[in-house]
């Protein structure tokens, strides 16, 4: 797999157990920082209706959609039940020199 690493933001710009929105080349992503201080990335829009997940709530390793509370595991992208049934795509993330990168 030939990932291109794209710079997202400084690692401390995302709070612990939180998410930010990241737009790049006409696409939108959600970038997460877990309570264990690991970083993760998924597609930015909910698979139920096209809603930005970055407005949602991160609890542990779950992102909850702000619109109808659909839940995904942001580490694996797995949809955790109604109303969402289609998984989220995930992307590799690395942190180097205090900067977060997403692999596209």
């Amino acid at each position: 797999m030939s990932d291109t690493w794209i710079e997202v933001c400084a690692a401390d710009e995302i709070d612990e157990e939180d998410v930010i929105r990241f737009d790049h080349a006409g696409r939108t992503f959600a970038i997460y920082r877990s309570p264990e201080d690991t970083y993760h990335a998924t597609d930015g829009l909910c698979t139920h209706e096209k809603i930005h997940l970055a407005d949602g709530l991160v609890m542990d390793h779950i992102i909850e959609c702000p619109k109808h509370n659909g839940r995904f595991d942001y580490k694996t992208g797995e949809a955790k039940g109604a109303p969402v049934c289609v998984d989220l795509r995930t992307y590799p993330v690395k942190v180097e020199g205090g900067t977060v990168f997403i692999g596209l």
Partner: protein
Amino acid sequence: MADFVIVGAGECGARAAFALREKGFDGTITLIGSETHLPYERPPLSKEALVAGAGPKLVADAERYAAAGIAVLSGRTVLEIDRAGRRVRLDDGTALPYDKLLLATGARPRTLPGMACGGRIAALRSHDDATRIRAHLVEGSHVAILGGGFIGLELAASACTLGASVTLIEGLPRVLSRGVPAEIAAIIASRHAAEGVEVLCGAKVAGIAERPGEVRLTLEDGRIVAASLLVVGIGAVPNTELAEAAGLAVDNGIAVDGLLCTSDPDILAAGDCTSYPLPLYGDRRVRLESWRNAQEQGQLAAANMLGGGEAHCAVPWFWSDQYDMTLQIAGLADGAAATVRRDLGEGAFLLFHLDAEGRLIAASGIGKGNAVARDIRLAEMLIAARRHPDPAALAAPETRLKTLLAA
């Protein structure tokens, strides 16, 4: 092998059917619904799907029912429950045996006394209703909407977006008087006015007459509203007749206990058709008409049909979309002794409702897009945990509500 039958193929019935399989049930599941479509989501009917003229947004496609081994009988109505014989009788004359029965019959629009829908008078509950209404929502047409509840207001916003002009008539002094704080209802009403909707509050209808090409409403103050279509949005009544005829207890909905059991232990009921005790509010009996409630109760009913013994202990939650604004409400605000406001910027704000002891019992918020969603969700968790949060912390937008939850 056990036979489980679900009457009512809406949000609740469909979720219950899938949940039974997810929980490992290996008997037969038959989901029976009067409508000819597979189960679909109703909220889009007054919102984006109405504007787009989209087809029904299915809860699941036919393949998923087939894969899960769920038999869906569409366009079939259950006429009778034979409790002694443990069978339901359908309108095609067939009878189906059941070991456990779930009633998820939903609700239907309340109608004006002596006035059926048809011609230029409509109500909005089903996809077919939406299709009929949409045919009238064209540039330059005029729709009259009776009732300033959620469905009437969402429909007004969608009609406006499609270029129709709208008169909305509400009998009470303000819109959304049930369950929505006046401060938020006022914002919604003024937005409608700014978009050109004529909102007439405190207006009583004296007469309705259909004439060639129009429907005419005469108001008690003598004003006449002529429209190409009248949509009646004055609430919903639960579909309880089937249960009542079978001798089950009914009290503003099919009366169930905390486990969603009716007065017959082999018959459960869930969703818009039921009333049940809410533990968080002193076991007050309520009937909720909300999408998430239909889902949660469908899932809970499935667990309890399998003998799970799980009690319903959720926080009521509801949302509404109008123009680019979203309103969300968690909990039940009546009985609140104090209200605390939290401003989030760009006009978005939340109201927290506390009881006399300072316990958080509800939160309502409105803003553009999903501006209030995260805080409402956290408020919901505080409500569920029966917390007494510090009002000053609630009011301060820089205090993260998550920290209050951890406290």
